[in-house]
Each structure stands twice: as C-alpha cells, then as structure tokens.
C-alpha cells in the first residue's frame, strides 16, 4: 500500500536535484516525440543537443542566446521570490529596446564612447518604467499583476510595430519594417573576431553577482524572501509591502530592458519587429529551472538556450519547424513542476499484513 505524506521541511539536496530529473525526462520525452514523428530518436536528439555546440561558433551562439535569458530570469527571480507574478518580461524587454533603440537612433550618424552607455541606461530605464505600470496598479488599485503585465506585452509589441513601420522606419529602407542601422558607437563590442558573442554577457554576469549579493546579504533581500514565504509574517514584521512590490518590479523590468538593449545593440543592430523570440516568456522557465537561485539561473539559461539552438539545427537537418524548441521548453517546465511533488510530499510504501488493522 502506498501512503503519501506531506513533508514538514523540503530537503535542500532534493530541491536542487529535481531540475536535473526534469531535464533527463524532457530529453526522454523529446526522443519519444521524435520517434512518433518517424525520426531516429538518437540521431534527432544528437542534432538537437550535441551538434549545435560541437564547435566554437556554436558555443558562442549558445552564450549569445543564454545572455538575455539569464538577465531576464535574474530579474524575475526577485519578483517570483516575493510572490509577485510578473509574466510580462517580454513587454518590458520590448519597451526597453524601444527606449534604448530610440536613443541609439538619435545618434545614428555620430560616434562617441558615451553613446553606448546612454543607450544601455535608457533601455534599463525603459524596462523599469514599463514594469512599474503593473506594479503601481497592483499596489494602488489592487489589480492582478499577472493579467496587466501580460496585456502590456501585446501593447509594447504593437507600439514597436507602429514605430518601425511608421515614424522610425528607415527613410532609405524601401519601406521595410525596420529602422536605420545603429552607428558603431551604439553597438556592443564583440568579444572575439568572427563570433557574435558580445560584451552584453558581462551585464548578465554582473546581474548574477549583484542579485546574489542583494538577495542573500542585504536587508532588502531578507524582506523579499520573507514576503515570499509568508505575507502575514512580512506584515507582522512591519515590512513596507508596497515599496517592496515597486522595487522588485523595477529590478525585474530593468533586467528585461537590459536584455532587450543587449539584443538590439548586439546581434541585431537596429529595431525591427522580431527583436526577441519570446525570450521574456522563456525566461520564466529559466527562472524556475534555476530554482530562483542566481547561479542556478546561469545553468538553466544555458540549458534553455540550447533548446533554441537545437531547434534551429533540427530545422536545417531534419526539416522540422523551429517551434519544436518550445515543445522542449514546455516539457522542461511540466516535468520540473511535476517533480516538485516529491519535494513537498513523501511517498511511503507500507507493507500491511492481512490481519493488520487498516486505518
């Protein structure tokens, strides 16, 4: 007979181990789906997870994709840890890119060392302002932040669309929906000749370090964690709940804005409609897979970035749509959430003899 009991405390080792179970189950699940679709599962998985990073260029691409995911997820970890459900990072990324891109366009025909820092700061502020909308509405009007932040994703994407086809479109661009190219001074410096990996990765690493410091070494971090564990305790301790909500949303929005600016000043170099393959949504998976821990998030962003790369490789070699990356991303989150059951509940197998009293 199987008995399920609620655990009193979550074993930490298991807490950081279950993400690996989720990844293994996802790979197995992916193999099964490939098999059903008529591919050789071993070969398909090889194209997915090994071929993309088997050379230096591929490895640079992996870091390139992991950078925005890591940045956004770090920001989200502040929100999620304190029980604030910001799921509109994609919108904050887009708005950050719009503001940062706008500054870059102001200087499109100028060069100067000061331009890139201005663009980056503008992007972070843009993301921050956009994240403040759901935060302010939540604190002062009691609205649901999930729905507001989500709705704003579409608003920001439509705004970007309007700008790149309308007022900001390249005057010499034959009506393509894109802006002018940014000047070289607005571009992230490349780290290596011939590879696309750029200095934005240092922004992500700095965010990791800073977030670790803030979350684990400061009073604010303590407040955030306590509010996440129990709102009542936080209230009893006299923490200013409203200020904290605003702060975590601002941090989260700034990180997403930075990710957006990193994309447009890094690999893209201008504004157009497709500045992000839903990094803002995927970063939610990264945040969970990394257990909202700064170093866990680095690892998780690499894993999830690989699903993007793998999908591109599989599209080339197996002619399957690029969207399959999302099958893997969805599965990772499904399996991770499911394996959390083991954290909160103990499964006991009891041997009951026939004449023993059942209760």
């Amino acid at each position: 007979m199987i008995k399920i009991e609620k655990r009193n405390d979550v074993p930490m080792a298991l807490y950081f181990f279950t993400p690996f179970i989720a990844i293994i189950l996802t790979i197995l699940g992916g193999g099964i789906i490939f098999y059903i679709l008529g591919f050789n599962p071993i070969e398909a998985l090889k194209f997915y997870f090994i071929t993309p990073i088997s050379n230096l260029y591929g490895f640079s691409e992996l870091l390139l994709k992991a950078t925005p995911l890591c940045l956004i997820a770090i920001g989200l970890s502040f929100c999620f840890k304190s029980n604030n459900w910001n799921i509109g990072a994609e919108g904050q990324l887009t708005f950050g890119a719009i503001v940062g891109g706008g500054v870059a366009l102001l200087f499109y025909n100028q060069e100067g060392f000061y331009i890139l820092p201005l663009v980056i700061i503008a992007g972070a502020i843009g993301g921050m302002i956009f994240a403040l909308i759901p935060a302010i509405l939540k604190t002062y009007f009691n609205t649901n932040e999930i729905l507001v932040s989500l709705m704003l994703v579409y608003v920001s994407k439509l705004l970007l669309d309007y700008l790149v086809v309308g007022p900001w479109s390249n005057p010499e661009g034959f009506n393509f929906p894109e802006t002018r190219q940014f000047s070289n001074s607005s571009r992230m410096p490349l780290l290596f000749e011939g590879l696309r990996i750029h200095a934005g990765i240092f922004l992500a690493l700095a965010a990791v370090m800073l977030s670790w410091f803030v979350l684990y070494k400061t009073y604010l971090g303590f407040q955030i964690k306590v509010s996440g564990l129990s709102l009542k305790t936080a209230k009893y301790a006299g923490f200013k709940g409203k200020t904290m909500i605003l702060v975590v949303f601002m941090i989260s929005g700034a990180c997403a804005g930075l990710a957006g600016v990193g994309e447009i000043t890094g690999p893209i170099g201008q504004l157009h409609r497709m500045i992000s393959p839903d990094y803002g949504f995927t970063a939610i998976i990264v945040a969970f897979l990394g257990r909202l821990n700064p170093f866990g998030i680095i690892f998780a962003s690499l894993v999830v970035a690989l699903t993007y790369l793998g999908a591109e490789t599989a599209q080339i070699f197996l002619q399957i749509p690029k969207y399959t990356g999302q099958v893997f991303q969805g599965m990772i989150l499904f399996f991770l959430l499911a394996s959390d059951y083991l954290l909160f509940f103990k499964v006991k197998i009891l041997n009951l003899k026939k004449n023993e009293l059942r209760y």
Partner: protein
Amino acid sequence: MSLDISFIGILIGSIMASSVPLILAASGELITERSGVLNLGVEGMMIIGAISGFALMVITDNLFIAIVGSMLSGVIISLIFGFLTQSLLTNHVATGLALTIFGIGLSAMLGKNFVGIPGKEFPILFSSLKESIPFFGPILFGHSIVLYFAFALPFLTNYFLKKTKLGLIVRAVGDSPVSASNQGINVILVRYCCILYGGAMCGLAGAYLSLIYTPQWIENMTAGRGWIALALVVFATWSPIKVLIGALIFGGITILQLHMQAIGFRIPVQFLSALPYLMTIIVLVVISRDSRKIKLNTPTSLGRIFYKEK
C-alpha cells in the same frame, strides 16, 4: 465606400464571425476559473484544437469527426494541466504558461505536413435567406452551426451557473473549496471536470479558426486570440453574458481595423489592435478598485492550490 444599410449588415455579420473563437474559448475558461482554477494555457489549447481539427479533416475528410476530434484534443491537452495542478498540486500560473508554450510548439510539429493544404468548405445554414433579406440576412443567416452554438453558449453558461445544482457546486468550489469539501463535494473532481470542459471549448475555438474562419493550417495561427480570451473573462468580470458583449467589441475592433486600413483612416492600425488589451487593463483597474464590485463574481479561490489532508 458606401455605408449603405446592406453593407452594415455584412459588416455586423463578419464581426460576429470574428468573435466566435473568443466567445467559445472565453466561455470555457470562464467555467474553469469559476471553479477556482486559473488556466493560462488557453492559447496552447486553442492551437492544438486548430491543428487537430484541420489534420482530422484532411485525413478523414469528415468535418464532424474533425470538430469532435478537436474538442477531444483540447480535453487531452488540458488533462496534462489538470493532472499537474490538481493531482500534483503545481502552481496554476506556471503550469498554464508551460501548456501554452508546449501547445504552440507541438502544433507546429504536428502540422508540419499540413502547411499549404487547402481547407474544405464548411457548410453554412440558411444560405438562401442570407441573400434574400437585406440587412438582417447577413446578420442572422448564412453562418456555420458552430457560430450559432457559440452565440447560444453564454446564455447556456449563465443558466448553468445560476439555475442548476451543478452550477452552484462549481461556484461553491471556486469560492470556498474548504467549505465545499466539508459539504462532501469532491473539489478535485469538480475542478478536473471544469478544466476538461475548458479544454474542449478551447479546442473547438481553435477548430473554428482552422476549419471555418480561415480554412487552412498556418503555424501559430491563433495569433494571440487565446490571450484575448483570457483577458475577456476578466473584462467580463466572470459573467457569461458580458463575455458575449466583450467578444463582440473585441471582434468588432479586429474587423474595423481591416476596413479602416482599406479606407485609409488616419489612426494607426496598431493603436486599434492594442485597444482590447488597454481596455482590459482599464476594466481591471475599475473593478479592482472597488472591492465589492470585484467580489461579486470573482471566484475567491482563483489560482490557489487546494490540498486536502487524507
């Protein structure tokens, strides 16, 4: 362009057609949410319904099987959500999000061989009356059976929630799962049923898109309609009749922007497209500010995990 009376009739008819997937998905989600479950997977379930319906139509050449199959596929995919949130007690928001991401990916994978295949004409009812009666003809007649079902659904949902015992149980489970459970109601079972029903309606909404509205399969063809449907439920403050009104407004905006583009209207199209989202935010602010208003219909336990010590 002449704005004569028959043109307005045709316009209203097309607004109705464009609001059908929103009505279906939002009505389904409304029942799910009324039982206290927040399923953000609407978009994912719709797109799975769209590809299953279209694929079944191509394979079996039978529209009835395609429609029923799309609903079944919605049920199956929502079962993943139900199992995770109800049996494994996972977070509703994260699970629903995973469902949407997974659904979009899976539909593209399944639909790989169906891109570019022309759809089949879906039978419309009373087509002769549509032509013969000016103004009212294009509004009332010449639609598919799914449209008539969709327009009846909010009233049926309203009746179900307000007048039937089962509806009362659903509301009780959503408002106070603990008391409902103490009354001997199996909360988990009720929520499972509501989730699966929501899945079926979202599947049907998807099939409406791929079989009737634009009869073909295109990757990601739901194009955010699932999120609008989710917004619509809040916009309607969880009231089925208001879902119908909201869907017509949102559908109307979609149609109007097409016509405004055609006549060279000065307001940017993107602004009109953003209106449903902005309006939802405004409605959210208005209803949330007054706690009595939002409490009226909002399921109190929405999105919260229910766990009963056995």
